[in-house]
C-alpha cells in the first residue's frame, strides 16, 4: 500500500502543492491530472524518492521510503520522460541492463521475447539510435513485461506510441492491476484502462475547465 501524507513541494520560491495526501491499495490505479507545469512529474519523482518533499512523507507498506530505500526500490518501477536507453547498445542489451539495474536478472531469450511481444520483432539487435521515437518508447516499456515490481509509476507512458501499442499497453496495465499491482500514471490521452471502481484521479494545479 502506498500512502502519501501531507506532501508539500516547493521548487525555487514557488509552492507547487501542499497538504497533498492519498492512499493507493493493491489493484488500484491513480490517474494524475493537471495542466502543463502543475507538478505531475515532480509529484511522481517525489513518490519515487528522487526529490525530497519540503514537508510530509511517502510511505510504502507502512514505512517511510527514506528509511526503507532498498525494499521500496525493489518494489518500484519508474518510467519517466527520459528513456534510459543508450543509442550505441541494441534493444536487447538495453533491456537486459535496465532490468539488471532494477534487480532482476533476465536471460537473452526472455529479453528477445519481451521485445517481440512489444512489437519490435526484427529490431531487437539494432542499435537503439536507429529506432524511431515510438520504438524507443517500446524498448523502455518492455521492462513492464519483465518486471516483478508491484508499484509502477509511469510518466506519460502513452506518448509517441501508435494506436496498437497504446491498446497493448492498456492491456498490460490492466493485467498488472488484476494481479494486485498498483499504478500511478499521467496521460493527456483518453484511455480506457479498467472499470471505474479501481481508478482514482487526482487533479493538480489551479486552472479551471476551459482555461488554456
Amino acid at each position, binding site marked *: 500500500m502506498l500512502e502519501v501524507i501531507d506532501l508539500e513541494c516547493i521548487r525555487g520560491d514557488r509552492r507547487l502543492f501542499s497538504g497533498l495526501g492519498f492512499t493507493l491499495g493493491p489493484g488500484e490505479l491513480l490517474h494524475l491530472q493537471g495542466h502543463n507545469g502543475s507538478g505531475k512529474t515532480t509529484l511522481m519523482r517525489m513518490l*519515487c*524518492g*528522487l*526529490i*525530497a518533499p519540503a514537508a510530509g512523507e511517502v510511505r510504502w507498506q507502512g514505512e517511510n521510503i527514506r528509511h526503507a530505500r*532498498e*525494499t521500496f*526500490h*525493489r518494489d*518500484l518501477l*519508474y518510467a*519517466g*520522460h*527520459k*528513456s*534510459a*536507453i*543508450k*543509442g*550505441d*547498445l541494441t534493444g536487447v*542489451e538495453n533491456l537486459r*541492463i*535496465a532490468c*539488471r*539495474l*532494477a*534487480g532482476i*536478472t533476465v536471460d537473452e531469450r526472455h529479453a528477445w521475447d519481451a521485445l517481440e511481444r512489444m512489437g519490435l520483432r526484427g529490431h531487437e539487435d539494432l*542499435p537503439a539510435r536507429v529506432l524511431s521515437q515510438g520504438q524507443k518508447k517500446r524498448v523502455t516499456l518492455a521492462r513492464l513485461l519483465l518486471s516483478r515490481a508491484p508499484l509502477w509509476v509511469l510518466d506519460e507512458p502513452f506518448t509517441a506510441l501508435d494506436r496498437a501499442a497504446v491498446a497493448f499497453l492498456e492491456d498490460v496495465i490492466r493485467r498488472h492491476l488484476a494481479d494486485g499491482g498498483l499504478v500511478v500514471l499521467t496521460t493527456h490521452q483518453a484511455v480506457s484502462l479498467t472499470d471505474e471502481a479501481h481508478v482514482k484521479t487526482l487533479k493538480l494545479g489551479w486552472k479551471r475547465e476551459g482555461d488554456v
Partner: protein
Amino acid sequence: MFEAMTVLIRRDLLLALRRRSDVLTTLFFFVIVVSLFPLGIGPELDTLRLIAPGVFWVAALLASMLALEKLFAGDFEDGTLEQMLLAPEPVFVLVLGKVLAHWLITGLPLVLLSPLLGLQYDLPGETLRVMVLSLLLGTPALSLIGAIGAALTLGLRGGGVLISLLVLPLYIPVLIFGAGAVEANASGLGAAGHLYMLGAILLLALVAAPLATAAALRISAE
C-alpha cells in the same frame, strides 16, 4: 550486490568499445602534451630528465580532468542516472563501478603507454618502473576524486570549467607524491615513502569518494 556493479562496468566498457573516439582523445591528449616538451625544450638530456616527473604527472592530471566531464553526463542526459538512483543496490556501489570502468577506459591506457613515452626523456629503466607504479596508484585516485566534481557539476552550464576549478586543487596531494616518487628515485633516494603515501591516498579516496559522489548525484538529479 556487486553483480549490478559488474553489469555497469561491462556496459561502460562495451560503450567505449563501440565509440572508440572518446577513449582515444584522452590518450592522444596525454601523448601529445608529453611529447611537446622535448620538442620545445630541445635535446638537453639533463634538463629533460629533470622535468620528466612533473611533466608526466601534470599531463596525467589534465588528461584525467578532460575525461571527467563525460563520466556521468551521458547517463544524466538519457535518464539512466535516475534508474541508477532507483536501483535496489546502494548508489555508492554503482558509483564505484562507474569510476572503475572510467579508469579502465581513460586511466589504464595512459599508465601502460607512459614507459614508452618516458624514453623521450632518457629516463633509466628503474625510474620508468617507479613512474608506472606511481601512475598505477595515482590515476585511480584521480578518477575517484574527480568523480565528486563531475557529480556536483552535472547539468550545469559551463560545467567543464567548473570541474577543473573544483577538482584540480584536490589533485595537488596526488601530484606532489606522484611526481615526488619519480624524482626521489631519479635522484637516488628511495621512492617507497612517496608510493606508500600514494597508496594511502588511494585507499582513502576509495572509501570516501564514492559516498560523496553518490550524495552529489542525488542532489544533481533532483
